[in-house]
């Protein structure tokens, strides 16, 4: 049987992708807007279409610790979280990447309290950029499903052995229904190798794992961890090409550029806002504006070279992100600026959509217009915040 089509939400697409990867152990703790993923997986286990052990854990911290325990025995696992839950996991994020445990986790990008908000921005995962996880941000339901499968292939690759976090914008992507194509079991079998962990806990050859190390040795382990993450750039590309060869869907690896090749003005994006920005690019192109949009897919490993390659003609670059590192600038912007330190283009940071605030088509048009006129560089602009005259 070939691929079939289904009308699903982003969360459901994740659940279907996970099901196809056949994890043996699932542990998760509910948090909006991730819940539908774990509900669907529970239904699949109940119906027998997914043969997994489903663990009811009492917290996100325990969810991640539990899947680590199962993974080091050589069992493929899955967990999912969002926002406060991801932050609660923070210790275990570092722990699992340092232990080189190839976990796969879905994160529904959601704002971080206070003030409380269940709606989406990307401050949760971006604040954990240094936790040693590969971070990929997807744009639509199809990419959500496809990236779950690619995530396992990347994380478990012998040269990578680094956990992967697949990020979906809360509600905008997790709860929006789209028609997607579901790969057949045969396609998945051809794409995703069985999980084989060379250094697993083994009754025949016992291991002592997750040890302490002296200052003398510690930096050596950290060097290896960094090398593996850098090496993953090549693997990410290979995995995407292999996936494309089997399913006809490829995503371009670390970045996805749209009409950047001759663009004067480029907006750099992350996640689901890209679709709308692409529409604006088409409109402006019809009016003769030389504009483009560059979607960053992976924040770690960071695609510095790819960003340089796709922005060669640009005179003005804007980074549009749902994030702010208080006291400086958006984290995506900081990273992009460092990649473009030798670029002549002016760089502007647009902070938007915090706490789920809508980013409108008109705002994006305005940003392109501003960018085409801007000369100075390194400024942070909040989109959609009315500043009174007194404060200004």
């Amino acid at each position: 049987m070939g691929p079939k089509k289904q009308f699903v939400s982003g969360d459901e697409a994740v659940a279907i992708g996970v099901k196809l990867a056949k994890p043996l152990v699932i542990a998760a703790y509910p948090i909006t807007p991730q819940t539908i993923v774990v509900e669907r997986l529970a239904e699949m286990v109940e119906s027998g279409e997914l043969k997994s052990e489903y663990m009811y854990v009492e917290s996100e911290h325990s969810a991640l610790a539990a899947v680590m325990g199962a993974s080091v025995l050589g069992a493929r696992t899955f967990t999912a979280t969002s926002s406060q839950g991801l932050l609660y996991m923070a210790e275990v994020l570092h722990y699992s990447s340092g232990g080189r445990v190839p976990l796969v986790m879905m994160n529904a990008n959601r704002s971080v309290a206070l003030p409380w908000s269940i709606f989406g921005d990307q401050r949760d995962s971006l604040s954990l950029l240094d936790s040693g996880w590969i971070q990929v941000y997807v744009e639509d339901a199809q990419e959500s499903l496809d990236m779950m499968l690619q995530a396992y292939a990347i994380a478990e690759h012998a040269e990578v052995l680094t956990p992967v976090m697949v990020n979906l914008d809360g509600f905008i992507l997790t709860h929006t229904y789209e028609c997607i194509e579901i790969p057949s079991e045969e396609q998945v079998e051809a794409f995703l190798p069985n999980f084989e962990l060379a250094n697993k806990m083994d009754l025949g050859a016992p291991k002592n794992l997750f040890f302490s190390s002296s200052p003398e040795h510690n930096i050596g382990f950290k060097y290896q961890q960094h090398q593996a993450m850098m090496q993953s750039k090549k693997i990410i590309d290979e995995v995407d090409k292999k996936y494309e060869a089997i399913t006809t869907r490829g995503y371009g690896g670390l970045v996805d550029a749209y009409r950047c090749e001759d663009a004067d003005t480029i907006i750099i994006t992350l996640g689901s806002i890209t679709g709308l920005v692409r529409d604006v690019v088409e409109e402006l192109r019809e009016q003769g504006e030389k504009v483009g949009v560059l979607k960053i897919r992976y924040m770690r490993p960071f695609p510095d070279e790819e960003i340089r390659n796709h922005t060669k003609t640009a005179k003005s670059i804007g980074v549009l992100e749902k994030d702010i590192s208080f006291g400086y600038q958006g984290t995506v912007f900081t990273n992009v600026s460092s990649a473009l330190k030798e670029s002549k283009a002016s760089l502007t940071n647009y902070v938007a959509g915090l706490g789920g605030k809508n980013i409108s088509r008109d705002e994006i048009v305005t940003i392109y217009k501003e960018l085409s006129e801007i000369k100075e560089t390194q400024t942070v602009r909040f989109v959609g915040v009315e500043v009174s005259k007194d404060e200004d």
Partner: protein
Amino acid sequence: MKTKLEQEEYFYGHKACAGCGGSIAVRLALKVLGKNTFVVLPAGCMSAVSFVYPQLCFGVNALISPFASTGAMLSGIYVGAKALGLKDVNVVGFAGDGGTADIGLQALSGAIDRGDKIIYICYDNEAYMNTGVQKSSLTPYGARTTTTPAGDRIHGSTSVKKDMFDIVAAHNIAYAATASVGNIPDYIRKVEKASKVQGTSYIHVAAPCPTGWGVDSSDTIAIAKQAIDCGLWYLAEYEDGDYTINKNVKEFTSVKDYLKKQSRFKHLTDEDIETIQVQRDKKWQALRKKAQ
């Protein structure tokens, strides 16, 4: 009582202090459980003394979990082993009193709630010994620690030791027991029993710390025995909803003698000791009532 133990050592070459009660509890339990065992240790004395690369001291599969995660990682290993079809394995955790009654309590509660077939052993040395003797919620009333100094204002620990045995029993756990390195045959029997239980088991083993308690390193076993004899520790089991007292001490020996042997209690007045005796008597009254 005859006790058979494996000759094989699964925990050796570690750097625990002389007379360490915790290391005795780990070594003996592994001799009972044997080579098909997966061990989880959180941050704490036992991981600190045995797990510094490249000097790794477990002869069985073992790992350090995050401090709060002993219960969760034990569960993950158990469930992973089940999913992979591994048969006849033991999954055992060794966590200290702080790792169990403070930071690890939530994950332990979750594991008992799931009923996963794991053995959780709390080696209780009554303070955060690894970090230099700070008070935990299992530090007994009156004890001096580095965070409960024995001055006029603080005068040692002012809270009464939590009862982890009661706490886990209240989960309706499959098997729970208290034990002590002062009664090794009893401890070994309980570890063996735990390995046969279908469901979660919890053993709370009193494990004196000569360094933190201020006793001679050759007195670990003796002081653990004395704690049982004077009634400040008890040996009991909880199984299928029933409580059993393993050693129903008819006449307690002197609490004062027990306390005054340890420098952590040196400052206690007769009035303090009277308070401790009253606490002891209440505890035993409640325990005997439950075991009726």
